[in-house]
């Protein structure tokens, strides 16, 4: 017993030595900035990001009084909801299609990954060109095929800017969903489908009684992760519209950035960062619980 105790302490000392560099690094570059931004949200700041006076919750109260801020919170929620729902539906269809064996399926799977594999900022720049109202191939293709005689100016239109932007976010997110669902589907034992066939199940019944229950956990984790990423999608919006026209495509992330680095309202930026932090922490705790449950730890 004694000897074991000795080994135990020496081993844990070694363990601390091993985790020390990473932990210190995370403390300096993740934990400290987070703590700092929380503190900053309770201060009055100047344009040079100095913290002047402690003013308690006044920043929060003032922001909550702003109509635009509330609109943006609301928009972030439905941005996330619509985009994740669309990614889920398209991803599911794609996965179901790829779950059937045929020659060339591997190529199709590889091609499907490309939007996810490609660099997001560069894809967003390409979409900027695709959406170009004068020389862009989207508008002209719609016109020349007769699908849509009079397409809008995608990113400049008050109604269409949001749709055009969210589509790019959806587009990037589909491959991940499809791949994860597909991986889940392929782990479903074939006997279950055979049994369903014997019972005379039709396609819908096969999906709802065999496929979906089989991928339920994967489904939960994938949609949760997708919610986090979608809520956090800074790149697409910033590159395509910078939140415009007239702020109609801003979500919390881009609005925070704009407040901080364009308008130098550091205190407001800090408050919004804290709001983001709270929302994301809640979601990630749920993710952690499901993840641990699956790992069986």
């Amino acid at each position, binding site marked *: 017993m004694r000897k074991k105790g000795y080994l135990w302490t020496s081993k844990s000392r070694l363990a601390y030595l091993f985790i020390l560099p990473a932990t210190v690094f*995370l403390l300096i570059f993740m934990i400290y900035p987070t703590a700092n931004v929380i503190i900053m949200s309770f201060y009055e700041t100047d344009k040079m990001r100095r913290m002047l006076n402690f003013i308690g919750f006044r920043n929060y109260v003032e922001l909550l009084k702003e109509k635009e801020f509330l609109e943006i919170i609301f928009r972030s929620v439905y941005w996330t909801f619509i985009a994740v729902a669309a990614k889920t539906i398209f991803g599911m269809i794609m996965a179901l299609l790829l779950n059937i064996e045929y020659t060339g399926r591997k190529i199709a799977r590889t091609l499907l990954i490309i939007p996810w594999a490609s660099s*997001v900022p560069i894809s967003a720049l390409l979409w900027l060109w695709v959406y170009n109202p004068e020389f862009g191939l989207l508008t002209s293709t719609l016109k020349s095929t007769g699908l849509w005689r009079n397409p809008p100016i995608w990113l400049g239109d008050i109604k269409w800017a949001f749709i055009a932007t969210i589509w790019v976010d959806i587009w990037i997110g589909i491959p991940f969903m499809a791949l994860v669902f597909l991986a889940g589907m392929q782990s479903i034992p074939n006997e279950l489908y055979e049994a369903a066939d014997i019972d005379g199940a039709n396609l819908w019944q096969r999906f709802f009684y065999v496929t979906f229950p089989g991928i339920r956990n994967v489904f939960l984790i994938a949609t949760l992760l997708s919610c986090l990423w979608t809520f956090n999608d800074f790149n697409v919006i910033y590159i395509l519209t910078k939140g415009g026209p007239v702020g109609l495509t801003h979500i919390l992330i881009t609005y925070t950035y704009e407040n901080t680095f364009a308008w130098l309202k550091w205190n407001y930026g800090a408050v919004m960062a804290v709001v983001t932090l709270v929302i994301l922490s809640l979601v990630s705790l749920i993710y952690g619980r499901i993840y641990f449950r699956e790992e069986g730890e």
Partner: protein
Amino acid sequence: MRRENILKIIVISFTFIFLLLLLFPFFVMISTMLRPSREVYTSPPYWIPKHPTLSNFIGVWNQVPLVTYFTNSLIIAGGTMVLNTLLSVPAAYAISRFRFPGKQILLYMLIVLQMFSPIVVVISLFKIMFWFHLLNTYTGLIFSNTAFTLSFTIWMLNGYFKSVPVDIEEAALIDGCTHLQAIQKIVLPIAAPGLVTTMIYSFIFAWNEFMFALTFIQSAKKMPITIGLYSFVGQYTTQWEYLATASFLAIIPIVVLFLLIEKQLVAGLVGGAVKG
């Protein structure tokens, strides 16, 4: 049999249509980069170039400082990869091999940090970078990128290390190996595919990172490719044929790398749920 064949034809044609829609911007990219500039700015534009040319692949190097951007991206992504590996390997080893007080807290911290949004830290990180004179430096970006890749890579590596049997290692330790030697000679070679995955992951992350680079880099000499191309578009008249060409060059290596690790990445993200 016949019913199955019909089903297959339907499946293949739907897949084909979906893929056409999904790859649309890349078709536009290819069509644009093969057109001489006078064919780019015609209204209405057309898909197939009348005089297809590869001249943009020569012209782009003069129009866009691509060599600088690529070098910067390589330094930043390579640096992130190295630093990230140096920090994550020992940490993941400790987590996978030792029990120690505080381990559970550490695990939870790692999972929460994985989900962090850059926006939460970018504000104060800007202050830190300013104090340490790290604005407009590679180091600043390497540090902030590593902060974001670290928790996920520790997490993934932990999984790989756990799959390496402890017996061989214990035998080596009894024979007088130190822990570091055991990691070097036994654990890392066996977990090599996992290690490569995390290395590629951190490289790709840093290559594609946008917000930190946008915030911390102002000098054109230090810009990675993402910000470089973004600022190229920001100018009054964008030459899209060059943007398409540069995008093509920037995407190819990253897509290839991504395809190499895609399966492990998905497994790492969804954890045990997919093993079934």
